[in-house]
Each structure stands twice: as C-alpha cells, then as structure tokens.
C-alpha cells in the first residue's frame, strides 16, 4: 500500500471503527481513539514531504490499479506540486478539529468524530485522485458526512442549511459528471486525467466543458454569485464543521479549476478569463463590503472566506506564475487562518452560546491569552506581512499588476476592506471595557484550547515568515501548467 493510500484509508478505517463500536457511555474512549486515528492519519502524510522531489512537474507517489475494468476506471493516485500540500494540510486540520471538539460535542460523539475522520480521508482522496471517476467519487462522497455534520450537530436552522449545502453542490457536480463522461468518450475510453490534458477539443466543446466544470467548482469555491449557500451553512454548522468547510472543502473547488478547467479546456479558459476575473473581483470587493455589515461573527468570517477565495480564483485566471502560485499559497494560508478564525469563534460560542458581535465587548479583559491569539489570526486575515495571509495575497496582487495594472489596483484596494471588517470586528468583540455580564463571567482558554490555537498560530507565523517550502514544491508544476495552458488545443 502506497503512502497516499495510507493517508486516505487510515482516517477512513478509524472513522468506520468509531461508527461501529462507539456509544455515548464510552465517549472518553471514543475521543481518544479519534485523536489517535487523526494523529496517525497526520503522521503518515509526513514522509510525503520527505520523499517529494522538487523541480519536476511529474506526478509523484503514483499508485495505479485496475478498479472498474469495464469502464477502464483505475484506482490511480498521485500528487504533484499543485496538490501536494493539501494532503498534510487536511490531515492536520482534522487533528485540530478533533481536539477542538473534545468537550463541545457530548451527544453521539462517535458519529461526530467518525464523520470527520471519514471526511478527512475522502478529501485527501480528492486531492490525490488522478482518475476522473475516482475524483468524482471522492468529491461527491464528502457531501454525505458534511450533510450529517451540519444537520445533526448544527444550529437552530441547521436543516435548511444542510439541504442547501447538499443540493447546491450536488447540482454543480452532476453537470461535471456529464462532462467527465463526455471526455471519456472523446478520449476513446479513458478516465485518465493526464490523458484528457492532451486531448484536442473543438472550441465549442471546450466552452461547454469549461462551464460544466465551472458549475461544479464555482459552487464549491464558492464564487460570486453562487456563494449564497456558504454563509448560511457556516452559521448553522458546528465549529468543527465550519473549520473543515472553510479550511479544506472550499479548496476542493479551487483545486478543480487547476486540475480540470485550465488544462483540459485552455482555450476556453483564456477566452472566458475576463468573466472569471470579473467574478473574482466582485467577490473580493462586493462580498468584502457585505462582510463589513454582518452582525454575526461567523457570517462575517464566512463572507470574508468568499472574498479571500476570490483572490485565489483571481490568481488562477491571470495566467502567470505569480498569480497561480499565489492562488495556491493563498489556499493553504486560508486553510490555516480561516480554520483558526472559526475555532476562535467556537471558543467564545462554547462559553456564551451566542455569535452576535453585539453580545460581546471587552473580551480582552477576561480572556487575555485568548485575545492574543485572536489578534494574531485577525492580523493574518488582514494580510499583515509576516503572517500566512500576506504571502498569497501579495503574490496574487503582484501577478495581477503584471498582467493588468487596473486589475491589480482593484484587488489591492480591496485589501483595505478585508482589514476594515476584520479589525472592526476585533475592536467590537475584544477591545474596550467589559460589555456585559456574559463577558464578565468568561474564563480564559484552558490548556486544550491553548494547544489548538498555539498549533495554528505557529503554522500561521511559520508560513508567513518562511513560505519557501510551500512555493518550492509548487514551482515546477505551476510552470508546467502555465506552459500547457498557453498552448492551444483547437484542431
């Protein structure tokens, strides 16, 4: 069994085990088992970094076996510089979520932990699948645990949110399925994604394929105007669900653009880049403004996620190496930062059971340690140099200026909105005199919460101060991708 298979199936096996054995009487044992599973799942991803060869765009750690012979579908895994970092990132966030949900989940603990572990394995599967159907299976299967997580452990309006999440994303993916089948027939019976990259396609076919993939990935990212499910879902989802959703699941969509849309339909991608850039800029600017007026902290961070993901798609569709690598770096950074933001909100919610900004004020007086962490994450969310949030945004803006000054200018000014809503929220929740009795009664974070936030804080700082390991890995693959996109596939 290869490393990637281990990374996928270890958490799934542990998750299945939890579902099979756990009862709420054994909640303690269940939590520890979940933690062990998540940790092993994370540890098996570490040798990947060690073995990853730099300077090549080839797929690494490739595993290939027959799966459905009748349709020439293979169990085909591998990672390149584009997908590599998401494997350990997913496993890492899973560990964090397991620890963060340690006490806040008391009912059906085994199902909760099991769902997260299975989800983790499935998402790693998405990032490492090199076969169209395998990709689709993993991509779609993530809906089931997420639907249950939102619906069972979510807030008062959770059922609406769970349905909206499922049906929105399903519609997009179903159109992608048709595209996959079409490509299978065009390529003479192959579901191999690399083969599709080389497939000559007419302009009309490329446009249709591009929009079929767009339906799947834009909804998942989510891009404006199909982003409306995200705030609803974030508000209702439990803390761990929000963290995984923002940190990893949104990346599945962005990743899809790089793996499918750009290389399979390069002509269409170039032809429609203006649309994608326009939608990304709207996300960055307009959604940033929307975030500013939110009263609910989670909603604010959710809109801020849409805006930050706008940078990612913007970077992709300006077609230069700074832009694309910047987009990928931004994806990873946003994984850490948004995960941390949602977990911080969870810390407050566990104590006060409210996410209204107005219900707080002056938290720094009662929770100084916690506030220090939140300040770090808020700064990262604004894109302060030295934090993870800076690197990606800076690269994207640089790339955008290189491509077109006005696009770069628009994106750069939008950063101000990001700083504005983040800092304003920080001020209203954490600074000033103690706002009310709720805040007065707050206790500072315990060692478990400290651990979670510290680990994320280190990640945010490390990535901000020394982003080379991230960019080094992706350079060759990004260059190869751009070279490929620049060539026409029309015949």
């Amino acid at each position, binding site marked *: 069994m290869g490393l990637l298979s281990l990374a996928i199936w270890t958490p799934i096996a542990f998750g299945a085990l939890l579902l099979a054995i756990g009862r709420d009487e054994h909640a303690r044992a269940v939590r520890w088992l979940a933690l062990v599973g998540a940790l092993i799942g994370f540890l098996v991803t570490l040798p990947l970094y060690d073995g990853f060869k730099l300077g090549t765009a080839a797929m690494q750690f490739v595993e290939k076996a027959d799966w459905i012979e*009748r*349709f020439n579908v293979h169990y085909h895994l591998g990672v390149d510089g584009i997908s590599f970092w998401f494997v350990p990132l997913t496993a890492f966030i899973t560990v964090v979520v397991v620890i963060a949900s340690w006490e806040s989940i008391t009912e059906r603990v085994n199902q909760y932990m099991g769902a997260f572990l299975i989800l983790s394995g499935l998402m790693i599967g998405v990032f490492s699948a090199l076969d169209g159907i395998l990709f689709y*299976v993993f991509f*779609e299967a993530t809906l089931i645990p997420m*639907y249950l997580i939102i619906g069972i452990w979510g807030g008062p309006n*959770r059922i609406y949110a769970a349905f909206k999440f499922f049906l929105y994303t399903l519609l997009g993916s179903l159109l992608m399925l*048709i595209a996959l089948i079409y490509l299978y*027939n065009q390529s003479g019976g192959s579901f191999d994604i690399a083969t599709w990259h080389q497939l000559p396609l007419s302009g009309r076919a490329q446009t249709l394929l591009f929009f079929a993939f767009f339906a799947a990935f834009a909804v998942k990212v989510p891009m404006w105007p199909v982003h409306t499910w995200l705030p609803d879902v974030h508000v209702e989802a439990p803390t761990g669900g929000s963290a995984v959703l923002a940190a990893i699941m949104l990346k599945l969509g962005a990743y899809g653009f790089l793996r499918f849309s750009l290389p399979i339909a390069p002509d269409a991608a170039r032809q429609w880049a203006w649309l994608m850039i326009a939608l990304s800029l709207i996300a960055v600017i307009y959604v940033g403004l929307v975030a500013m007026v939110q009263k609910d902290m989670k909603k604010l961070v959710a809109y801020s996620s849409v805006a930050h993901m706008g940078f990612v798609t913007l970077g992709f569709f300006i077609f230069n190496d700074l832009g694309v690598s910047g987009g990928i770096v931004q994806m990873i950074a946003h994984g850490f930062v948004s995960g941390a933001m949602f977990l911080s909100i969870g810390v407050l919610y566990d104590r006060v059971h409210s996410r209204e900004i107005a219900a707080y004020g002056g938290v720094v007086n009662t929770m100084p340690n916690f506030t220090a962490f939140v300040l770090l994450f808020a700064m990262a969310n604004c894109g302060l140099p030295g934090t993870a949030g800076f690197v990606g945004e800076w690269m994207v803006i640089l790339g955008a200026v290189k491509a077109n000054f006005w696009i770069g200018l628009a994106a750069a000014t939008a950063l101000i909105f990001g700083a504005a809503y983040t800092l304003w929220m920080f001020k209203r929740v954490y600074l000033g005199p103690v706002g009310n009795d709720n805040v007065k009664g707050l206790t500072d974070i315990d060692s478990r919460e400290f651990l979670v936030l510290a680990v994320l804080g280190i990640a945010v700082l490390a990535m901000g101060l020394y982003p080379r390991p991230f960019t080094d890995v992706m350079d060759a693959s990004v260059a190869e991708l751009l070279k490929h996109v620049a060539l026409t596939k029309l015949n």
Partner: protein
Amino acid sequence: MIDNISWLAIYPEIVLLTMACVIALVDLGVHSPRRTSTYVLTMLTLAVVAALQAMYASSGNTFYGFGNMVVSDAMGNWLKCFATVAMMVTLVYGRPYAADRDMLRGGELFTLSMFALLGMFIMISGNNFLVIYLGLELLTLSSYALVALRRDNATATEAAMKYFVLGAMASGFLLYGLSMVYGATGSLDIGQVFKAVNSGQIKHQVLVFGLVFVVAGLAFKLGVVPFHMWIPDVYQGAPTAVTLMIGGAPKLAAFAITVRLLVDGLLPLAIDWQQMLAVLAIGSLLVGNLAAIAQTNLKRMLAYSTISQMGFVLLGLMSGVINGNVDATAVENAYSASMFYVITYVLTTLAAFGVILLLAREGFESEEISDFAGLNQRSPLYAGVMAVCLFSMAGIPPLVGFYAKLAVLQALVASGQAIYIAMAVFAVIMSLIGAFYYLRVVKVMYFDAPLTATSVSAPVDVRVVLTINGALVLVLGLLPGGLMALCADAVVRALAT
C-alpha cells in the same frame, strides 16, 4: 421433439414447481402459527434453485428447449438467480411482519410467492410470445392474491382490486399487441419474428401498430408514466411484505421480457420503439420525481421513486441503437447498463423495505416518513442501512446507485447525439430533484428527535440479512466492476444468438 436438452433448460423450474406443490401439501399438516417448517422448506428450495441458476449462469451456455419455446442463457439465468435470492430475502424480512398480521395462517404466502417466482422464471426464459404471456399471467395472478392476503383489511383489498383491474388491462394490451405482431409476421417465435421483421417484407404500419400496444403493455408492467397509476396505490395499499414482493424481484422479470420482446424480437424496429421509450422515460423521470416530493407516506414515496428509477432503466434501453445503426459496443453498453440498473435497484429496494418491515410492529405500520423520526438514536445500524439505501437511490457515490446512473448516462452520452446528451442532462437535473426527497427521509432519521425511545429489536435472521444487504449496497459501490462485467457478459451472450 422433447429431447434431453429440452429438459435441461427447465430443471430449476421443475424443481420449483414440484416443491411448490409439495410445500402446499406439507403445509396442510403444519399448525405452528409462524409456519416454521413451511418456511424452512421454502427457503431450502429457493436456495437450491438459486444455486442451480447460478451454476447454469456461470457456465455461460445458451440452449433452447421445447422447440425454441424457452431459452436458457446467461442473462436469463443470472436474472433468475437474482430474482430467487431477492425472493428469499423478501421472505426473511416479511415473515415476522406477516406473522404479526395473521397472514401466515394458511401458508399461502409461501406457496403463492413460489408460484409468483415460477411465473418470473417463465417470463425470463420465454422465447415465444405465448410462453412469455403465460409466465406473466402466472406472476400477476399470484401477485393479485398476495396483495389481497389480508382479506379483512379494506386498503389491501382495494389495492388488490385496483391492481387486478389495471393489471388485466395491461395484459390485454400486451396480448393485443403480440397478436398483431403475430398477424404481421406469422410467428410467435421470437427468433422467427426477428427474421421476418428484418427481411423488410412486412408491412411496417401493422407492425408499428402492434408495437405501440406491446410497449404500452410493457410500460404497465415496468410501471412507467403514463401507465404508472397503479404503482403508488398498490405499493401503499398492499401489506408491506407483499409490496416488497411485487416491487422487488418482478422488476427483473419485467426487464427480461422487455429485452426479449423489443431487442431480441423487434430490434429492426428500434427506431420506432426508442422514440416511445424516450417519451416514457422523460415522463417517468418528471412525474416520478416531482410527485415523490409531495408524499408523506414512505411506501408511496418509494413507489414514485420507483417510477423515476424505471425511467433511468428506459433511458438505458433506448440508447442501444443509434439512428437505426446496430453497433455492438453501443448495444452492449446500453443494455448492460439497464440490467445493472435493475439489479442494483432491486438490491437497494430490498434493504429499504426491509427497514420499513422491521420497524412495523403489530398494529402499527410505520410507513409514514415521520415514523422514522430519530431512528438514528434508536438504532444507528438500521438508520445507517436506510441512509445508505437512500443515498444510493439518489445516486451519490460511493454507493452502488451512482454507478448504475453513471453507466446509463455513459450509454446516452456515448451516442454522441445532441438529443441524447440533452436527455442525459435532463435526467441529471431530475436526479437532483430526487435527491431532495431522499435527503428528507435521511433528515427525519438523523436530525429529528425520536418519538419513542424504545430501541428496535429484530429476529436474528432479519438482522443478519439486513446488515449484509445494506453492506452490499456499499461494497458493490466500492467495487462495482465485477457485477458490471457480469451484466455486460450476460447481455453479449444473450444477444449473440
């Protein structure tokens, strides 16, 4: 004309018929209220028959018996094998339910279901219009009686009445159509009919007229729009165990006669019947999915969902021949996709109804969707089985229903025709609507609070079979290759002759 090989073709049928009669006689002496000895005998017989069929099927040989009246080929034998297993599973799930409702008093449940199964066998292996019709009548007459088994129950009686009237009409349609085809071609033998039609010497008009009635009759049996009206009423009205009996295995037989009549016999007319199937398929997808949303009764919802699922089967059947060109790969893809769809549909339906049967207690039917509230808290296992089935029917990977839809969509898209691709997109959008009502049941089971805290208990055999059944929906989803290859191989062999 009765030679050795003739008998060989129908050994399993002979075993089944003999044992059905023996068991009917033995049952006279059985007085236990749960009919344990009858039950055990029945299960043993079915197990032997299933093993026989599997043996025949895996040998892959095709042979004819009784002057071409019946055929034993890989497709038919596999379908018969699966139908037998489905009937066994149905009886395991249905027996406690039937016992609670005094439906085992006379033991007819077992003998009638065996006769129904025999009817399916004859339908599946019929190679002659009359034989197919005989099998069909044996199946439906047994089913009418099964639906009316609770004769003191008004809804069941009403359902039986509706089923009988509409079923008789359907048989009439089919018979009328077949007689017209006979009139035009001068033969009841499917092979002869094919030759006659293929010669191009037959008057097209008469044939097409007959074809319309044949397709209408088949549509009744498959339960597709606009001949679907009996499905919701009968599914809902029949005792749940019987619902499963008419909603499970017979779909395999209906698929078989559709292939035998339309593909084996009337393939040269594909361009005509494909248009009819297209209309039926679109109607079924539309009506089935939209009407299912409005249902509060789970059995009725599953009935409408069946209608939409059968729409998918038809989509597969109509994509085998493109523009009148018979292409071997397209034929194989299309019909094996349909076969795979039907088999996995039956597998999933069995488990879904199994959970309904399990939850039904004496005097309480557990068929409203709200009865499933909080099932996850009462029994995570059964909620899990049900959820797996529902997600599978909605076509979410990695469950087997996804691959069924994938295979059908592949067959559609492979045709390269814009209209077929448009139908694929339509089917996909309809599945999205379908996902909504399947999800709603999952929602009730997982998100709502339970009405009672009692945990669910079940006899050990039910528990084991149900767990295996649910696990199969998942395992076949992870490894669908084998069953897909089996279907493809069976279809190729069946159509090669």
